[in-house]
């Protein structure tokens, strides 16, 4: 069947009777994306579950379910005293998963927020100012985006780890704070590109010219006009950033460059890493539960991101 562009058709048919603010419209469209709405629900439940972990977690993160003197406590399959089984040194997997989810969510959200802030600022300024600053920023992002991600991450990790004032500010490379710093330093490039493109197209529109004509400063234009108009792509970038940081943390942990387990910390990534050898021995519960938690987070956030993208860019109307 032959098609006519949907946008023309709306106008042609006169579907312009209702007028809603763009934000409300986007919100409505978001609600029609079933997978995204369900994901929001699941994610909220998961966060509540983690916040209320004192109610269900019966053991400390590094506490053994019972003393080794009472019998072997390692690698026990799920049982009533340890719902998700025990790990290689007899700790409760359930309690550790809850704790790991908390750490991973913190890493994901904090990194995404920081990189979003950094990327928006750099992207907006690059887009507005153009010229040399723009050129340099874009070349830097090009190189970074083209480089194998993990290689760049590892090299930069160690490089910053060797710089005194960085470790003074954000801790040793094996701390959670350093991870957040690292992912923020890495995450801004994608956001900056999106925002720069957005700014470049907005810059040409009348209302920004009008603001400029009224003598508004660059900073004011960014704050009052450009950022609110870029909120859609930024929310999408935020969701991508969360998934990216959580997966990156897990990947780094997998190869021994993650948070230091010696300090008693854990994260989903560390648990996944720990399960690597356990899997071959057939201790499936050591892999299954951290995997499931990780997948719930990445899937939910991805679907939310997809819903947001569709909501703010209805042309590409996607999964329902």
């Amino acid at each position: 069947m032959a098609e006519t562009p949907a946008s023309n058709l709306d106008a042609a048919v006169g579907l312009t009777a209702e007028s809603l603010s763009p934000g409300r419209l986007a919100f409505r469209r978001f609600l029609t994306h079933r997978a995204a709405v369900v994901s929001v629900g699941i994610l909220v439940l998961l966060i509540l579950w983690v916040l209320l972990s004192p109610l269900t977690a019966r053991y400390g993160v590094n506490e053994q379910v019972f003393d080794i003197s009472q019998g072997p406590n390692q690698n026990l399959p799920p049982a009533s005293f340890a719902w998700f089984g025990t790990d290689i040194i007899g700790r409760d997997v359930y309690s550790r998963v809850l704790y790991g989810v908390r750490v991973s969510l913190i890493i994901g959200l904090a990194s995404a927020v920081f990189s979003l802030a950094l990327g928006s600022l750099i992207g907006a300024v690059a887009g507005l100012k153009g010229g040399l600053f723009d050129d340099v920023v874009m070349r830097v992002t090009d190189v970074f985006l083209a480089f194998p991600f993990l290689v760049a991450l590892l090299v930069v990790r160690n490089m910053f780890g060797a710089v005194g004032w960085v470790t003074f500010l954000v801790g040793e490379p094996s701390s959670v704070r350093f991870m957040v710093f690292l992912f923020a330093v890495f995450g801004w490039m994608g956001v900056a590109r999106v925002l720069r493109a957005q700014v470049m197209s907005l810059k040409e529109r009348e209302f920004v010219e009008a603001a400029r004509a009224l003598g508004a400063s660059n900073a004011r234009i960014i704050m009052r006009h450009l950022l609110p108009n870029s909120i859609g792509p930024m929310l999408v970038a935020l969701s991508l950033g969360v998934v990216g940081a959580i997966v990156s943390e897990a990947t780094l942990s997998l190869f021994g460059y993650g948070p230091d387990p010696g300090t008693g910390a854990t994260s989903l990534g560390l648990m996944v890493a720990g399960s690597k050898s356990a899997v071959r021995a057939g201790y499936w519960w050591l892999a299954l539960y951290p995997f499931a938690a990780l997948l719930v987070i990445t899937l939910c956030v991805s679907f939310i991101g997809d819903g947001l993208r569709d909501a703010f860019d209805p042309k590409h109307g996607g999964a329902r």
Partner: protein
Amino acid sequence: MLRYTLRRAVWLLPTLLLVTFLVYVALRLGTDPVASYRRTNIRASKKKIDQYIAANGLYSGAFGYIRGYFKWLWGFVTLDWPRSIKGSREVWPHLKDALANSLRLGLVASFIGILVGNALGVLAALRPGRLRDTLVNSSALVGLAVPPFVSALLLQLFFAVYWQKWFGYALFPVSGVYPAGHQGFDLFLMLKHMALPVVVVSIQSIAVYSRYMRASLLDVLNSEYMRTARAKGISERRVLVHHALRNALIPVTTLAFLDVGAVVGGLIITEGLFEYPGMGRFFLVAYSNGDFPELMPWMVLIIGSVVVFNLLADIAYAKLDPRIRLG
């Protein structure tokens, strides 16, 4: 077209020099090659260490970095490569094998990903909002959201560990290119070892391409010139191939070139988990040893491939899209 190509190609060498210099500095700061050498060769004499420093140009001080870079560069282009710090091996034979292994794995996976992913993307875009589209789009989203290490570990668990448990043998091996101690070439064995890593990587690239193609084709299908094409009264098939796909392929082709360029870098996560001796694993091992003489040539290969394929992607873009080809 030729002028465009030349104008872009002129930047090849400066970019290579700049990026390799940055990497050189980053590696020296990040891995502290001299300390790594001492750690690996505890009984190395002062003379040996000085030889190592001289061979690699690891001079200290801000100026030492610049001087050291050119010293390293000269050695690199005259093919006088320093030996690895661990076991003092020649770097190239080892690197060459890793490259071959990675190319084999990466190209097969890219091929599958590009072919299947684009086909799915086209199928989805032709029926936007329908069941077919929802299925493709959602599975792609899931495919992207599942980190490669999760699918790798799950595949290992199922095809090796549990298959062994249930049927008494492992359907697919989980590590290496050949079983330990195997000599010579054996296509069947090789494919068997490649199967699981290829699946892990293909899942990701199928997901990427199907979404990319879908978005690109939807964009094109919504454009005005599609209506013009239909108004001509040509067959729907010609409208789709000659007008829609021809335009939708432009961004997809660019992505494909960049992807193939990245194959040289290996698939670090997959290779790491399957102990597949490719470029990714080469890097992981060399990096954890702080093996500067092994890391630099590796980096040069990666950077060279990224930069060259970036250029090829630009040329392909210009070739496909006359708007870019401004001379």
